């Protein structure tokens, strides 16, 4: 999808005024946060597990070339094919070509954020290939023609009524218009998608983890849609960022322990699958061909510097589940594939700093994301670094720049600062003494729009302190 991150402010405002969305967002907090915490609390050494997760990813990134080549060799040995895509266009072309080679008319898709990132559906549509999202959440938003609002639960912003309406519109009127129960909605989608699974020519999935040791990919789902997607069509295409790699199966086990707990608050999802190559000669089902598309799309740019740490991300969504800003505005306001804290770092890195000015700033730096990140990505620090990059590239707004400049000029001249503070605070103090606060104040409208501004008590602390000390020493 095209980035709409430059529209952050109006989108956020819209989100705050959307009662359905607000209701849905409250469920995110209630659901994911509590379940994760219960499991983390009962795990003997979750902090140690996080350390190990970080160490595995750091080690892999430091040897990424070695492990990628090892991975490629193992995939090839297993009869699969590895493709390398430097850009979005290359990734699209590779997948379109694979589909054309087998004259594919219809493709089923498991949830893939990398696929969203390189706009795979748009490219396949343009090539005349029908794509059907099979993860229920993805399916719902595909019907609604919306981007995902959460990387784990893409349709989390949709209410049951909205889903009922969507199904009524798209499932050809076999049902009445009343609000339907959850089991009915799930069954309805199951029936429709079962047909698609059985008739698809190509199945496209993401990968939660790639393993260099065996040339395998792990796929984690609860619905089983990923397995139907890779097992039924003639061709399986997996698309994944190069940072998804880990060296060994043991390392994958650690990552999966972190992932399930951090993402959905499960010890294990219903289906955790390791796929290696296409069907073996004697197999009676499974695809004839297996392709892995390894995507760069800006990742190698991040590898060399401060933002390498972001490449540890295992896409669990815990940061957004614990982000108070995400909880207030939901995922769409962030304007691209990846919302919340991890998105606020990744989107500027991939889409560009100038098109995403709000993302690094729309954060209170409260650090709750970092405290739950399974691979200890210092998200607040990275967001601050992006602010610095904005400042250096003259992308910081003029009012902020000038305001900071003037304020810093005074802050670096303590005597002048103190003198000015005495005058200003003295005046404000007298004005506000009776009520103790201001409802409105020139230059402070952003503050006073939603809250009162407490008035200064009177003299500055510095002045009052010196006064008192003088009196005491007399």
């Amino acid at each position, binding site marked *: 999808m095209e980035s709409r991150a430059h529209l952050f402010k109006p989108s956020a405002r819209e989100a705050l005024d959307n009662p359905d969305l607000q209701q849905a967002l409250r469920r995110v907090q209630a659901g994911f946060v509590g379940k994760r915490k219960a499991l983390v609390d009962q795990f003997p050494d979750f902090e140690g597990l996080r350390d190990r997760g970080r*160490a595995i990813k750091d080690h892999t990134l430091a040897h990424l070339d070695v492990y990628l080549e090892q991975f490629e060799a193992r995939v090839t040995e297993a009869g699969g094919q590895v493709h390398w895509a430097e850009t979005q266009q290359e990734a699209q072309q590779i997948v379109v070509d694979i589909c054309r080679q087998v004259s594919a008319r219809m493709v089923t898709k498991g949830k893939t954020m990398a696929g969203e990132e390189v706009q795979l559906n748009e490219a396949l549509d343009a090539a005349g290939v029908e794509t059907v999202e099979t993860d229920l959440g993805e399916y719902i938003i595909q019907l609604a023609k919306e981007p995902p609002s959460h990387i784990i639960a893409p349709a989390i912003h949709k209410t049951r009524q909205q889903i009922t309406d969507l199904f009524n519109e798209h499932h050809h009127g076999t049902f009445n218009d009343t609000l339907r129960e959850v089991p009915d909605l799930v069954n309805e989608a199951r029936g429709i998608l079962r047909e698609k699974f059985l008739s698809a020519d190509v199945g496209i999935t993401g990968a939660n983890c790639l393993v260099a040791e065996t040339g395998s990919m792990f796929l984690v789902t609860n619905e089983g849609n990923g397995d139907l997607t890779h097992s039924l069509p003639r061709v399986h295409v997996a698309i994944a960022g190069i940072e998804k790699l880990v060296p060994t199966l043991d390392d994958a086990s650690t990552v999966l322990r972190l992932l399930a707990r951090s993402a959905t608050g499960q010890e*294990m999802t219903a289906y955790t699958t390791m796929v290696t190559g296409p069907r073996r000669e004697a197999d009676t089902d499974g695809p004839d061909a297996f392709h892995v598309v390894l995507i760069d799309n800006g990742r190698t740019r991040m590898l060399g510097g401060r933002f390498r740490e972001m490449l540890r991300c295992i896409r669990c969504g815990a940061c957004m589940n614990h982000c108070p800003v995400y909880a207030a505005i939901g995922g769409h306001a962030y304007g691209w594939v990846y919302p919340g804290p991890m998105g606020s770092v990744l989107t500027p890195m991939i889409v560009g700093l100038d098109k995403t000015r709000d993302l690094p700033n729309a954060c209170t730096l409260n650090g709750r994301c970092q405290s739950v990140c399974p691979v200890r990505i210092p998200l607040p620090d990275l967001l601050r670094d992006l602010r610095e990059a904005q400042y250096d590239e003259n992308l910081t707004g003029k009012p902020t720049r000038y305001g900071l400049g003037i304020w810093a000029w005074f802050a670096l001249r303590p005597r002048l600062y103190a003198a000015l503070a005495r005058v200003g605070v003295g005046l404000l103090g007298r004005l506000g003494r009776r009520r103790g606060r201001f409802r409105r104040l020139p230059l402070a409208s952003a503050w006073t729009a939603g809250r009162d501004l407490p008035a200064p008590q009177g003299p500055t602390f510095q002045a009052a302190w010196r006064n008192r000390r003088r009196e005491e020493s007399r």
Partner: protein
Amino acid sequence: MSSPRERILGKIRTALARQTVPTAAEASSSRLATLGDGTPQRPVWTESNLERFTRCLEAASGTLVRVRTVGEIGQAVAEYLADKPAGQRVHVAPNPALEAVDWPETLTVEQATHGRDALVGVSFAEAGVAETGSLAVLSGPDNPTTLSFLPDYHIVVLRTADVVPYFEDIWVRMRERHDFPPRSFNFITGPSRTADVEQTLQLGAHGPRSLHVVLLEEAP
């Protein structure tokens, strides 16, 4: 003109400021130095592995029955299906471990090469993982993958002797096998589920609506 592969690897090597590219052996020993060869952090339990396996499986909405011999499996399956609208047809994986099953005449048993028209599927698990109550079902001619995902009722036979504590234990066992890794190595933990509609848990999203384990005490 260089290929995307060469360009990506080149950018990685520039980013990592490579003088020389480490060998796989060097990477591996560096990994060992970083992570140590000690036990990774993982859950612990005081009950037996089998008890833990059962508890976790049931927590994931799976059900379980124990039988003493291979012969009894057929009867256990029939009893499980007795009160369900599943019909009498059972699609069974052509697995050597299930050859000696004594199927009751009430059931129509078909050897399955896939799961396309199966309402009830019976597969064989190579192992069970106590840590999470997961079944390890491996694809192969004797265990078609789609049989684990297309039926409404998925029944899996597992030997008690094959229940191991942790995932790492599975890898130790598997690395010794010449046919590892298979195309699809499925860890199955309970029936299919979704919470995509209003975060309400609903079983039977795309895969089986129920998962039933027949735990076989008899050694092979």
